[in-house]
């Protein structure tokens, strides 16, 4: 097998996992854009999505087409509850305080999942089929290909919604200037809730994809850290940044993991993050603005 083909395959695999990162990063971006909150619990929301799917599909025996929307809706519901219960009382507090609230939230979610489902890693019921996909001679894991397709469609849908849908416009308006959005009759608290619902739902959906690839465990929220790198590199408030950033990080992780070794994956990503912070603190596509305490 030629080295070039191998490189090509690795690159495809990197793009595939990069798409998952993009999707998760999208959850960060949606919430940040509307509410200026970095939700560090996105990783845990993702894990929760995986477990909800597990509960519906394996516990209640529902077919995948029913269990997936239910898991996403469940994630969205949790998002709504969190926004009303934990985030809204923190309105006007320093961004760091809200950030810490989401860290606490992550801990609570992990504990709840452990309490309900235990700590053993589990496999999700298979629903993606098994036939391998070949692009030319290059092999692509079917799950990864599906994840890529789903992520691409979802992000495209979001880009369109932002532009044309009323809710999307309201969200952008709120992101630009909350006070002005208020005075234009936009229901700003409603937009906040909406962003959390959609953001957490997206994360839950990403969790289903991720879980079907690698299984689920209470520790899978760590994936959120890599997605955090994506949003910092891409820009916290940029959907396009999440997309490009995810693919870039996915590729770099795949190349680093292959040619340097698996232990280099994370350190390469975070090294890159430091460089990005020093050169372009607001990300490749982010709005030029430095967060103030």
């Amino acid at each position, binding site marked *: *097998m030629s080295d070039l083909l*191998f490189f090509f*395959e*690795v690159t495809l*695999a*990197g793009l*595939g*996992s990069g798409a*998952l990162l993009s999707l998760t990063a999208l959850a960060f971006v949606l919430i940040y854009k509307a509410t200026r909150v970095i939700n560090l619990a996105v990783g845990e929301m993702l894990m929760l999505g995986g477990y909800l799917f597990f509960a519906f599909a394996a516990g209640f025996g529902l077919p995948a087409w029913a269990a997936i929307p239910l898991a996403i809706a469940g994630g969205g519901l949790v998002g709504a509850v969190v926004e009303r219960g934990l985030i809204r009382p923190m309105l006007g507090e320093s961004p760091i305080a809200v950030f810490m609230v989401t860290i606490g939230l992550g801990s609570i979610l992990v504990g709840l999942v*452990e309490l309900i489902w*235990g*700590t*053993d*890693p*589990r*496999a999700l019921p*298979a629903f993606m089929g*098994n*036939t*391998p996909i070949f692009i030319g001679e290059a*092999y*692509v*894991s*079917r799950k*990864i290909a599906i994840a890529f397709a789903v992520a691409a469609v979802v992000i495209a849908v979001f880009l369109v919604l932002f532009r044309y849908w009323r809710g999307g416009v309201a969200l952008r308006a709120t992101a630009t200037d909350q006070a002005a959005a208020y005075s234009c009759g936009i229901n700003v608290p409603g937009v906040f809730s909406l962003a959390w619902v959609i953001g957490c739902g997206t994360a839950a959906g990403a969790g289903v994809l*991720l879980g079907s*690839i*690698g*299984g689920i*465990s209470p*520790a*899978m929220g*760590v*994936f959120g850290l890599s997605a955090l790198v994506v949003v910092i590199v891409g820009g916290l408030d940029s959907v396009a940044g999440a997309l490009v950033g995810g693919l870039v990080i996915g590729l770099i992780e*795949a190349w680093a*993991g*292959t040619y340097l*070794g*698996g*232990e280099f*994956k*994370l350190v390469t990503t975070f090294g890159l993050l430091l460089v990005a912070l020093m050169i372009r603190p607001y990300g490749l596509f982010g709005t030029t603005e430095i967060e103030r305490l």
Partner: protein
Amino acid sequence: MLSFTRRTLLALSASAAIATALPAAAADDIVIGGSIPLTGVFAFAGVGIEAGMQDYIKIVNEAGGLQGRKLRLAYEDTGYKVDASVAAFNKLTSQNTIHLYYGDSTGFAKTINGELDRMGTTIMAGASFATELNDPKAFQYQFMAGPDYSEMTGILLEYIAKEKPGARIVLVNSDTEFGRDPIAATKARASELGLEVVEEIITPPTAVDVSTEVLKLRRARPDYTIFHGYVLAPLPEFMTQAKQLGLETKFMGTFWSMDASIWSKVGEAADGFMGVMPYRYYYDEADNAPMLDRIREMRPEYQSTPYMQGFLTAMLFTEAAKRTLEAGQELNAPNLKAALNSIENFDTGGIIGVPISIPGNSIPVGRIYRYDASAQQMLPASDWISVQE
């Protein structure tokens, strides 16, 4: 602050005393202490270990105990965190006289061994089969109820060398202390046996997507792939993708990924997974395995491999204590360890298929099992292999 602490302490220790007094603890009980991970990433192991130890203790106590003294397990959950394990150790040893202790992780074993040397009262076994601990000089009061990790891969290599001389091997290890433990020894042993290690893959401990690693595997075209440092994930994904790609490689693992019930949840993809196992499985129908009969009698449903590990550890603890007491010696670390090391050609009641000896800190025997998805069981694929020198 201090008065708070002290008052709480008094209240708590009083009530704790009441609580522990409930199961009629006698002063001369022989207490086995335990830092056991009932929760956290290693909970599946801890739950089995606890049950196995309790069951063996019950068997001994029903037979009248040791010279009339009852055995008792005093344990705490650790969540598989070293500091929690140390806290549990300190709490338990403050409240009880403990000569036998079960610890949950390599880090904990290394941390506490200094303390054991100083105390000189207690020997320890545990869930860690770390190669480093298998050194009677550095860890004089430590032992493990099975082969260390390097011995485990040694057994696998022994098997491979017999099945397919000159086979190509890929090692897949997680980037943790646990995962990296046997790499060097495995490579050395493989070259001794004329096997070729064609690729080493290190995965991050939390890897969920293994596509690039599978590509590496595909390029290396091994006959055997040996995993170490995992319980389950990401092994099924490796195997599924390898099957999709039509790879011929046989997948192998070590003790902690050998439980049949875990693999039964994976389904068809698990078929053919092999690995080294020092104990018999719950359902093994072997002659002269009275202890397995006894276990099946006590527990009608399947018991995990960690259960067997806990059961055997309790058995060896008991044997060491018994030999010490029978020799009329004081229960302390040097005597207990000497008694343990005097175990030779010992019959474990069939838990291990061959008589065992413990000249050092480990029991370097094991057997290759292969998972049969249709039977949902691990079935023996070799005879018992000993790598004792």
